[in-house]
């Protein structure tokens, strides 16, 4: 693991240039350009609002559109980091066959690239908050740590996924399915408070309720999205109890994911 830090420093310039290339390429020859980074969550918010008008989701004191927009800001960052990380190694096959540098540069770059879009999305979120008259509190200082948490969760998927994808392209096909499953299991459309209320207060699943809630929060995004809404909109600190299971799971799995990647790395050029 110390190797990764050393490489991070040594290859920071390369990663910066590659990230800049990804961003430039994505929006070159597109009329709306980087606006697309904003359009995607906005369209999703509109869809969720229509959905909500049918089923009714209690959003508490926070207006529903900004609550979901806030959730989508961090969710889309995670989702796109993970999926682009997974396809990054195969996508750069031409470089892998010709030039050597540590291969983790590719998944890392994918995640770094997404930081830029996250920045734009946050900017819009700030605008929405001003519109709804929600003032940020000091809790906003948690933001970098939460973003880091999302990056680590995305990298856990990206390292092992991109290495497996070199051998079995099934991975990049299956990933969108897995990710949308995680999305419905995460408090994106509904707030975490609803789940908490059902399971912990009303004990909806009987004696299994507490266990089920822990299982639900094993999804790193469950606690993370709630925490993100807390620090931006509710002015509350992250809910440590909701975040802990997912964070522990991420920190346990990430080293294995990275080690698998490093072991597979030497054969990328032969197989890809």
């Amino acid at each position: 693991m110390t190797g990764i830090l050393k490489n991070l420093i040594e290859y920071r310039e390369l990663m910066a240039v590659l990230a800049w290339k990804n961003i430039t390429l994505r929006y070159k020859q597109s009329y709306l350009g980087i606006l697309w980074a904003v359009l995607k969550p906005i369209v999703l918010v509109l869809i969720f609002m229509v959905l909500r008008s049918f089923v009714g989701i209690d959003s508490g004191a926070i207006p529903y559109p900004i609550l979901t927009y806030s959730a989508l800001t961090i969710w889309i960052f995670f989702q796109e980091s993970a999926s682009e990380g997974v396809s990054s190694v195969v996508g750069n096959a031409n470089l892998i066959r010709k030039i050597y540098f540590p291969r983790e540069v590719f998944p890392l770059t994918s995640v770094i690239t997404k930081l830029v879009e996250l920045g734009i999305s946050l900017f819009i979120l700030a605008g929405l908050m001003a519109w709804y008259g929600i003032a940020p509190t000091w809790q906003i200082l948690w933001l970098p740590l939460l973003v880091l948490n999302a990056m680590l969760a995305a990298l856990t998927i990206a390292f092992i996924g991109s290495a497996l994808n070199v051998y079995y392209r099934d991975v990049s096909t299956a990933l969108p399915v897995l990710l949308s499953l995680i999305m419905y299991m995460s408090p994106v459309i509904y707030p975490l408070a609803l789940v908490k209320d059902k399971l912990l207060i009303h004990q909806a699943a009987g004696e299994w309720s507490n266990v089920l809630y822990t299982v639900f929060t094993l999804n790193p995004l469950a606690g993370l999205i709630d925490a993100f809404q807390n620090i931006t909109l509710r002015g509350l600190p992250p809910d440590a109890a909701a975040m802990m299971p997912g964070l522990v799971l991420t920190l346990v799995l990430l080293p294995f994911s990275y080690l698998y990647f490093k072991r597979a790395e030497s054969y990328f050029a032969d197989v890809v």
Partner: protein
Amino acid sequence: MPIIQVEHVTKEYKLGQLTSLKQTVLNSINRLTGRPVEERKPFKALDDIHFSVDEGEVVGIIGHNGAGKSTLLKLLANIARPSSGSIKVKGKVAPLIEVGAGLVADLTGRENIYLNGAILGISKKEIGRKFDEIVGFAELEEFIDTPIKRYSSGMQVRLGFSIATSVESDVLIVDEVLAVGDLAFQRKCFDRMEDLIKRQGKTVLLVSHNIRQVERLCSRVILLNKGSVVSDGNANAVCTQFYEASDTQISSSPTSSLDLANKNECATGEILLRGIEILDTEDKPINSLRHKQAVKIRLDYEVTQELRAPVFGIGIHTTDFIYLATQQSAKQLKLEKLGIGQHRLTFDIPSFPFMPGVYSIRAGVAEGSTSRTLFYAENLLHLQVVLENAEDRIWNDGLVELSGSWAYTQPKISESTYD
């Protein structure tokens, strides 16, 4: 102190497709239960390669297709890892394995210089410093802010080469990159390579099929065949050996090569070449001769349709098809017609003019009045000119001996200079 140390390196690839998930699962079940596992056959691209390169050495790697040259370079560039054995390289390696790898079509020339520079490990500061030089060398000043997808392929390759050769490194690994661009640019590339090699004293590994180029640039050559080092040593000696090896490979099937020659698009079938041989003064067939030896080339033709005033031609060319000399029969041999049947022609060379090396023969027949080609083929027979003593050959002598005479004159020192 060697800068590159390659120790007993073997690289195996598995033949065939990647196994399916089903096969993988079956294999692991079989392995666990101790039943035989269906393995894919390994293929040894490199087999126990062992050599070292000292600092400042320029080493050429030659061999036939599939000899393992590119695999070896990939291992040295750390792109792939050996299956067994170890490779130690001291210092930074710059691989010019495929110039233009990593150029992005949608980015401009300027953007690509920064991107490709970073990929090759040049820092942003350094690129900034070298930017004008890179653009200047690639001759792309006007187009530098145009996306490179609008470039011609030659322009793209020029840009790639220009960026790649500006990497500051201790070891340069070059794979066939000199064959880029038009003639003028090839010349420039070659000069730049020569500059890197000879004046900046870099350690260079060069893979090329252009043996003449290798002979010129390298001080030492490693010949690979089927993944093993066949010989390693003085550039001229190894290149000559390579020519010999190519020669035996080609001449091992003489009949089929004649059949092929008779079927090529320049042969009408009205006259067929049935045999070609080089004879010494005692009419014994030979395939190697000494410089200035007297030899004869004998051609056996079979005529299938009566020919009017045929003209025969014969020529010598190098293995890379530089036509060295030709002689045709029009002025020496006035043949009215040639009837159906076997005919034999001999061409007498009183003193074979070419320097040691491997040459090949081309031959043709045309119908005199209209100059219509009836038969023409190249590479018909290889012949090797050898030196009596191969060790005598210390420099590349060229193709032809330059006739002339040397004279030495003592400078007349007038007494007054010493006053």
